[in-house]
């Protein structure tokens, strides 16, 4: 039990001159010919939340790896509270200084919360694990950090935010007071994010320092006091957030002035006789009831709402990925059978599914294989695939969507998140659909890729496709002609183009 901190309270001894809790000085790291970090520095002061932002590939993950002692820098130095970092091999020492809560949970789902907290250091009695003691200590730990989760719950049954709190509590129990949160909000909805931020502030008040990584710049301003920007493996700027307005922050991230496409939705007029391409009528399913709407050619319809509002269920029904029990979906007047992707494809529905890793891509295959997966039967006679034609189509996609890749043969697992998402978009567009269903199309991608993806959406609208954007992100919804809001499986509001952020958010949250 030596690793668990003294229960009497704060054990962290801090020098009076408040040395930074962690400091990286002139850190460089190369992987073969690729420079992952080039003379990067960061300084995180105690008791604050420090944001680390940058586009995909800017070097954030490498820096996190070095700060957590998983990788050693080629050059430069890491200091914790003024003292040099322990050797890489001394995992216990690193654990007592720093922890990272990754986007992908490191909790073992089939074990209880208690066992997860004390994994590989379970309290023993005469050499055997003492389960009562384990549960007692787990309860004490959870209570101490005010985590209201049952220690006997199966960890896999926890909600994502609860799982994150359990991971944080585990890190704190090792004595670490510096915690890295790697895109903690990516899978949370509005209410949950608020809850997480509230807990972050509480923990901060109790002496915990956070390094916060997020693609959502708004969150940086909401919860952080300082920010460090990386770009192309280099340190660009570190400043208090108050001194760095959003425009300048984006500029620092991209190296140029970017403004997200604020498509001129207000001035756009939809031809009154544009035919209806997607007609959803009284649709009911597992988590939605009696949903009706239509989308005309050249129109973008948004559907938003909390994660559990049923919006994804509706979108998956339209894409053939999920079933429905009542009602009808018509694509260009033709009925769509439930839960039948090939039928949906044949009727002209293209789809960007919610999770690119789970449903969007086969990571072990190439860009070309992934891009043409929806149209394999059209690439040659009798189902044979003509390599020339496949590569030709893939190249067209690469160029028209601006995918940064070595070529059609590169494995998609080697691409950055933004470029992977472009491949998923390319796969949806490959079948030349008349109806496009986009679920969280810019989730987890950097600002520049987001801009490119939304540009593609606008281009598809101009080509006369009917587009359904189902997303919880305001940026995705700006180009929509109308936005429907769902709550508890039903449509509760409709906002015409020109809505204000506040009005939309209030409507989503049900305020």
């Amino acid at each position, binding site marked *: 039990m030596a690793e668990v901190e003294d229960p009497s309270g704060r054990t962290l001894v801090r020098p009076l001159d408040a040395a930074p809790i962690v400091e990286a000085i002139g850190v460089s790291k190369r992987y073969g010919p690729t420079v992952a970090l080039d003379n990067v520095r960061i300084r995180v002061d105690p008791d604050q939340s420090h944001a680390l932002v940058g586009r995909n590939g800017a070097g954030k993950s490498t820096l996190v790896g070095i700060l957590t002692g998983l990788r050693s820098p080629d050059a430069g130095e890491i200091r914790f509270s003024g003292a040099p970092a322990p050797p890489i091999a001394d995992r216990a020492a690193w654990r007592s200084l720093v922890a990272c809560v990754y986007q992908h949970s490191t909790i073992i789902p089939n074990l209880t919360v208690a066992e997860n907290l004390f994994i590989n250091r379970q309290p023993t009695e005469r050499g055997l694990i003492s389960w009562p003691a384990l549960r007692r200590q787990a309860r004490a730990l959870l209570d101490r950090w005010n985590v209201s989760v049952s220690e006997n719950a199966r960890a896999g049954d926890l909600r994502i935010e609860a799982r994150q709190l359990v991971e944080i509590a585990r890190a704190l129990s090792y004595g670490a007071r510096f915690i890295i949160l790697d895109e903690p909000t990516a899978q949370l909805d509005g209410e949950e994010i608020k809850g997480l931020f509230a807990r972050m502030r509480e923990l901060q008040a109790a002496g915990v320092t956070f390094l916060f990584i997020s693609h959502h710049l708004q969150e940086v301003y909401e919860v952080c006091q300082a920010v460090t920007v990386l770009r192309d493996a280099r340190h660009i700027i570190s400043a208090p957030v108050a001194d760095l307005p959003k425009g300048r922050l984006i500029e620092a991230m991209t190296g140029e002035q970017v403004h997200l496409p604020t498509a001129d939705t207000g001035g756009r007029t939809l031809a009154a006789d544009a035919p209806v391409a997607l007609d959803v009528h009284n649709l009911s399913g597992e988590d939605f009831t009696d949903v009706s709407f239509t989308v005309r050619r050249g129109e973008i319809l948004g559907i938003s709402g909390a994660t559990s509002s049923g919006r994804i269920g509706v979108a998956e029904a339209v894409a053939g990925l999920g079933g429905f029990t009542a009602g009808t979906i018509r694509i260009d007047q033709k009925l769509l059978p439930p839960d039948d992707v090939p039928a949906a494809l044949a009727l002209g529905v293209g789809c960007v599914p919610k999770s690119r890793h789970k*449903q969007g891509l*086969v*990571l072990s295959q190439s860009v070309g294989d992934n891009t043409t997966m929806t149209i394999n039967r059209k690439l040659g006679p009798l189902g044979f695939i003509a390599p020339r034609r496949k590569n030709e189509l893939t190249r067209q996609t*690469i160029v028209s969507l601006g995918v940064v890749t070595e070529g059609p043969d*590169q494995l998609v697992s080697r691409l950055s998140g933004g470029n992977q998402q472009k491949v998923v978009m390319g796969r949806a567009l490959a079948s030349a659909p008349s109806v496009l269903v986009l679920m969280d199309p810019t989730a987890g991608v950097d600002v520049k890729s987001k801009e490119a993806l939304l540009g593609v959406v606008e281009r598809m609208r101009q080509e006369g496709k009917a587009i359904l954007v189902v997303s919880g992100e305001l940026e995705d919804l700006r180009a929509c002609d109308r936005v429907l809001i769902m709550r508890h499986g039903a449509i509760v509001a409709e906002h015409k183009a020109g809505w204000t952020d506040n009005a939309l958010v209030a409507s989503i949250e049900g305020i």
Partner: protein
Amino acid sequence: MTVNEPARAPVGVSQAASLSAYRRVVAVRLRDLALLPALVALIVVGTFISPVFLSPANITTILTSSAALALLVLAESLIVITGKFDLSLESTFGFAPAIGAMLVLPAANYGFGIQLPTAVGLLVIVLIGAIIGFVIGFMVVGLRLNAFIVTLAMLIIVRGMLVGATSGRTLFDLPDAFYALMTVTLVGLPLSVWLAALAFFIAGIVLRYHRLGRALYAIGGNAEAARAAGIRVERVTWGVYVLAGVLASIGGLVTTGYVGAISANQGNGMIFTVFAAAVIGGISLDGGKGTMFGALTGVLLLGVVQNVLTLAQVPSFWIQAIYGAIILGSLMVARVTGGEAQE
């Protein structure tokens, strides 16, 4: 959408791509050829051990004795690439030809005594393979049972049915057609070798250039993504089980021709060799990875090993241990030369 990036992209793509695509093609080939050093080493050892090793007659022997294993490895590779498992192929390998033979044989030769025409018997062999594959497909795909356990049970059941039907006896004096795959030769090689070669060739082409082949990789790599792309995951997986059953039954017929009889033990314990050949040939047990060329080199490697051990007159009691050690050794060599982890 900015104009400059997509405009810049094509130039960068074409230049960087041609170079790195070349490098990647070489890398892919290298992974396919990972077993060649081990194979060459064995051939050197073989030549050293016996002067007859490289003689045409001996090479024919190696190929002929590998044909049945090749068909089983092909069947297993297709299933493993799809991300599934089938342990029961070795039982189908014995059961299907035996039942086909018993339908044809008179009761005096331990047949069922109904003495159907030979052609029907041969047809039934293939049909039984398909039916067993269909049943497994039903349980694995339809009922979503774990493939490992289902096929382990099927391995035992089908073997048990074979022993039960034959009362453990060996079937002799089959019609000539049952031996045709071995007795009929073409350019000096028996039909079975050509059949296995053709099967590998077709499978290789389909896996690389046909949407069904690509569907196997997609399903094995990420079944959810394959489904979202319109691939009928259940139907394809089920079909692969049926095809594998058919291939296993034909493989069994090849062995029947090779041995000249069907014993109740035909194929017993062979599944381990099948997996060994597939895995050292680079078929990933995680699914979604591997090529037919790799699998074929795996088969040939094991065939050469058998042959060398026999020529070297290794005491028969020790052959098994040495065989296993060589499989492990080839795995390590493939790992080192191929540079990719073998899963």
